């Protein structure tokens, strides 16, 4: 009798310990979110979202230009990384059987491991130096290099998951392989591929390092990809290390905006992923 109770007790306490440990990684996340929103949300106001930055001490400064810049950088980077990433993913999943495929795969993995500041240097060498000035485009190139491996590998994995019978269904109707890829495989895997893209996007939106010597920052409105732009992470970086109270307050605000954007993307990709596992019903 006693031993059964003892075993039950051990069982229960083990469960308790595991539950607590499982919760541990979530703890810092909640702490961070709490901190960001507690300090960041009070900075939100109409002028915060729509105005340009002002010198310290001057009221009604905003981060409108940085929000525009972040959106512009994200879109440019996506426009560069999505087509190339999907095509390489298709290549790896459908065509690469030999050594060359292995080379591409390893390259993608290595690229994923390159520190983001190094990618910033690449953007500098490829575009800033030849052009002679900083630009949104050079920042987008650096960010797209960060997105690329994520999109390549997720596309490859999604396509590999599709059953061979799906390809056969199309091929047996006299559809060639390339059309089968475009018209059957990519549409069938679209939800998964999109999820990969959103994950990649949410990774780059908060990046500061690749932008330091590419997009550089710009205290004015800029909609020209060939000119430098501001970005929310740059604003956070600049304001947070400043000694001014209202700038620091705005740094928290900008962090909250970024966090909300990333959380939003995460949420969307989660909903898509659920649809994916629910067989697209």
């Amino acid at each position: 009798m006693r031993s059964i109770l003892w075993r039950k007790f051990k069982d229960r306490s083990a469960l308790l310990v595991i539950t607590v440990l499982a919760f541990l990684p979530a703890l810092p996340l909640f702490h961070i979110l709490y901190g960001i929103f507690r300090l960041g949300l009070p900075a939100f106001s109409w002028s915060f979202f729509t105005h340009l930055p002002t010198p310290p001490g001057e009221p009604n400064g905003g981060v409108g230009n940085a929000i525009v810049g972040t959106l512009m950088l994200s879109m440019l980077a996506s426009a560069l990384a999505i087509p190339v990433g999907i095509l390489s993913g298709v290549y790896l999943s459908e065509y690469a059987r030999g050594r060359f495929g292995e080379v591409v795969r390893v390259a993608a993995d290595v690229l994923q491991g390159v520190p983001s500041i190094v990618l910033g240097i690449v953007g500098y060498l490829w575009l800033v130096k030849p052009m002679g000035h900083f630009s949104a485009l050079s920042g987008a190139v650096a960010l797209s290099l960060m997105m690329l491996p994520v999109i390549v590998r997720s596309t490859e994995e999604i396509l590999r998951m599709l059953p061979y019978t799906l390809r056969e269904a199309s091929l047996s109707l006299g559809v060639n392989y390339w059309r089968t890829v475009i018209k059957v495989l990519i549409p069938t895997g679209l939800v998964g591929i999109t999820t990969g893209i959103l994950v990649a996007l949410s990774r780059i939106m908060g990046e500061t390092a690749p932008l330091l010597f590419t997009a550089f920052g710009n205290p004015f409105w800029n909609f020209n990809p060939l000119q430098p732009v501001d970005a929310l992470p740059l604003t956070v970086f600049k304001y947070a290390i400043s000694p001014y109270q209202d700038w620091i307050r705005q740094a928290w605000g900008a962090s909250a905006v970024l966090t909300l954007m990333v959380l939003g993307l995460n949420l969307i990709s989660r909903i898509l992923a659920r649809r994916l596992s629910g067989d697209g019903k």
Partner: protein
Amino acid sequence: MGNRETIVDPRGPIIFDIRNLWAYYGEKPAVKGVTCKIPEKRVTAVMGPSGCGKTTFIRCLNRLHELSPGARVEGEIFLRGKNILEIDPVVVRRRVGMVFQKPNPFPTMTIYDNVLAGYKLLGIKLRREEADRLVEEALRKAALWDEVKDSLHKRGTYLSGGQQQRLCIARALAVKPEVLLMDEPTSALDPKSTAKIEELVVELKKSVTIVIVTHNIAQAGRVSDYAAFFYLGELVEFGPTSQLFTVPRDKRTEEFLKGKFG
């Protein structure tokens, strides 16, 4: 072997004339020197124990075999007098359709679009009335029309397994092939759906030649006019089903039919 012919040429028109066909996976042959003639607008059953090369054999007939890694084909396959190994596989596959073991409708497409997939995927534009007519005709031929006519714009994957298989048959028929290859089309289905598909096969031979792989001897007896018996990659016996079932000429055919292996 022996004094009696084990490969009997069918009477009437011939659609496939297969000569010394070898099919390999890498160095390993899975179909070894098959020679036979397939009769037009008849049902030919392909039988034999597991792994004897039935699937490989029929996948040669629409050139799907060569897509497997390391796969290779040797010999000649004449389709109405033209060697299909020398023409564009895409053209061959339009003329020789296929239905697979597991139903494989396109999951992103509606029932309607699944039937028309052979046109849509190739970017062939159809007028609305023409498309409607093709869909109805193919679904009627596949004995599915009455069950789905009110839900044509639902996903194909909503259907039951048996209905999905008939949808795949309709999809194959919609491009008006001359031959329909079927690889154990009922092995994933319940008895009722199986009976439906068997009925359908018999009905369809009025308009299309059918080559059907089956594990089920009784099924071959019910639906086929001619039967081929494969053993270890060789075509051991070929002839009218009635003859092959009652007086098999090869010892191995006889043993297979008695259920000694398989």
